[in-house]
């Protein structure tokens, strides 16, 4: 391959403009796309010499060669995805489904519309509610460590989920959105959630595909904006099939007295790296970050969490549970940063790793940057094999080793899943986690 392909080429920018035209985007959206593309081209490719990238090798990726396909005109809802929706959670307030960046299914209850809730795909949202989106989209930041991938996602995303809940509206039934990959080209999932003052909602954001015959690539962003007193439960459910290499950046900005519960469930992909970030920038903000990872085979997971307290009187809690089987690998690194003057901030972090096989490997790296003196901050981490006393107890009641360890793993992860307060979603996610645990090859 000629190395000249590596340079920014006019074809690249032309592609960006073609995308914008094809999607009939307003001028400002096209400008944001171009800006993202320039950032993407300028940002250096991360290497393992960079602390943030030390545990995930991306040297085999040639990002400049990965380009998005134009959205298909008549996208079909694949059978497996239809099944997922049909057999999935009952009592849902609305569902969106995308395949390779095109909306293929949308069902929203009347009450959403009646209350002025916007729950639709990016393109419709941009056409119908340009001002609301523009106001937020123009302020979205780029984290320098992830910039290469985040900018790529923003430059190439052709669709994604937009959820805007107006002031004071409490959406009672949970919403769900599925972003699926067919393996036919890269995917760039994009989610924007804006909760206006005093509003409340639960959203499950699913990333799914069947096992893929060849290597596939994805890079996604999720931006969550919580207004004063808003309450959001956001479940990121990642079950890409084998073959997927996926990069993700989630960033939540929490307003005064708002409460975010974010639950990251990572089951799939051959390789995945995600940053999950909460920015507590107004007093009274509370962020509960939870995570569940279950890996087997050769899966590689790299999760980085950020609890960023820019002002005082803010609280963040974190519990990240990782269970690994086969030859899987997980790195968890968690930053608690309390900025100067952020007095009376509370920050807690706990990472627990359960290692089921001798070939599996878990790393945990807490990192505290505390620049205020009147704060409460604790952190803890464990990496342990399955307890032999627990195994002995379960087996003494007739359970085969495999069933005994299955119960131990389910039980280990359950406390996090219990935090999904919407019963229908909790049951759906628990069932998928249990199914994956039961199907492991070991």
């Amino acid at each position: 391959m000629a190395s000249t392909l590596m340079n920014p080429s006019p074809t690249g920018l032309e592609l960006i403009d073609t995308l914008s035209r094809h999607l009939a985007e307003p001028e400002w959206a096209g400008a944001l796309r171009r800006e993202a593309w320039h950032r993407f081209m300028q940002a250096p490719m991360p290497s393992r010499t960079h602390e943030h990238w030390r545990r995930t090798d991306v040297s085999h990726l040639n990002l400049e060669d990965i380009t998005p396909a134009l959205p298909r005109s008549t996208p079909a809802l694949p059978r497996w995805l239809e099944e997922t929706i049909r057999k999935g959670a009952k009592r849902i307030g609305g569902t969106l489904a995308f395949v390779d960046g095109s909306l293929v299914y949308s069902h929203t209850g009347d009450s959403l519309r009646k209350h002025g809730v916007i729950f639709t795909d990016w393109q419709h949202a941009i056409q119908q509610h340009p001002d609301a989106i523009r106001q937020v989209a123009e302020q979205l930041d780029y984290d320098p460590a992830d910039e290469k991938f985040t900018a790529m996602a923003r430059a190439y995303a052709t669709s994604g989920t937009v959820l805007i809940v107006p002031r004071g509206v409490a959406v009672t039934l949970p919403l769900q959105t599925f972003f699926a990959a067919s393996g036919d080209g890269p995917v760039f999932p994009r989610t924007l959630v804006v909760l206006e003052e005093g509003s409340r909602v639960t959203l499950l954001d699913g990333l799914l595909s069947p096992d893929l015959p060849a290597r596939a690539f994805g890079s996604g962003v999720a931006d969550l904006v919580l207004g004063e007193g808003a309450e959001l439960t956001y479940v990121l459910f990642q079950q890409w099939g084998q073959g997927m290499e996926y990069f993700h950046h989630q960033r939540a900005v929490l307003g005064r007295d708002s409460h975010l519960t974010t639950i990251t469930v990572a089951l799939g992909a051959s390789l995945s790296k995600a940053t999950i970030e909460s920015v507590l920038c107004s007093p009274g903000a509370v962020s509960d970050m939870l995570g569940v990872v279950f890996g087997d085979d050769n899966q590689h997971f790299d999760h980085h969490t950020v609890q960023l307290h820019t002002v005082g009187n803010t609280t963040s809690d974190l519990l990240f549970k990782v269970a690994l089987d086969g030859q899987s690998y997980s790195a968890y690194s968690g930053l608690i940063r309390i900025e100067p003057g952020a007095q009376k901030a509370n920050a807690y972090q706990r990472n627990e790793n359960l290692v089921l096989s001798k070939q599996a490997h878990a790393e945990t790296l807490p990192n505290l940057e505390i620049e205020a003196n009147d704060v409460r901050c604790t952190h803890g981490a464990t990496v342990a094999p399955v307890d032999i006393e627990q195994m002995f107890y379960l087996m003494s009641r007739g359970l085969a080793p495999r069933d005994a360890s299955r119960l131990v793993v389910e039980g280990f992860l359950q406390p996090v899943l219990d935090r999904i307060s919407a019963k229908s979603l909790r049951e759906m996610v628990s069932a998928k986690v249990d199914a994956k645990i039961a199907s492991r090859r070991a």
Partner: protein
Amino acid sequence: MSHPLLEIRDLHVAVDGKPILKGVNLTINRGEIHALMGRNGSGKSTLAATLMGHPRYEVTRGEVLFEGQNLLEMEVDERARAGVFLAFQYPVAIPGVSVANFLRSALKSLREEEMSAREFRNALKEEFKALHMPDSFASRYVNEGFSGGEKKRLEIVQMGMIKPKLAILDETDSGLDIDGVRIVSENVNRIAGQDTGVLLITHYQRILRYIRPHFVHVMVGGRIIRSGDESLAHELEQRGYDWLLQEAGAEEKELQEVG
């Protein structure tokens, strides 16, 4: 069919290379209740855990037959399926796993024909009732946050669901209140019925008033040094262990002098 339920012959067991059991002999027939007593650290739990197959206990000599089969060759779960049950001295907590889920999985592995969900629920309800426990315990996580006595009762709830051929009860009476000892005992008797063999490890005579042993054995230093009937337990309660040790010491000395 004429095999005894359990035959332990010259059993020697080591933990981390340290010998604990030093030649245990014991035969238990169907329907027999054997009490095993002895000072702290004499090896009673070691025997119990070895019979159940705990991986840390290494059998260095001897054999154990269960209904004529070599028990020591079986995995822990195979022993359970063969009919061996151990009520733990220190039951283990399994966080995140409900009692109902755990027992349902256990029964699935133990039984040929599957119980319906309804049958299971009813049976579990009955057992909780029998042990004077609210059936809300079904949805609690196994032994997590249970009081000492609740843990012991849950062991017997499990015994009732599983209905083993051989029940090894390791100090099930300790940690129970006065009524608890009676309730647990009544239930052990009910579940054991006519056919179950029971090896009851205890320090106290109290439980033996309810679960009346056919035999009482005393373990000292990893060996059973004395066996008798109920009256032996009574005597131990009156006199402690010293006299036995002295007698045993004298015998040992004699043996050495002869040998």
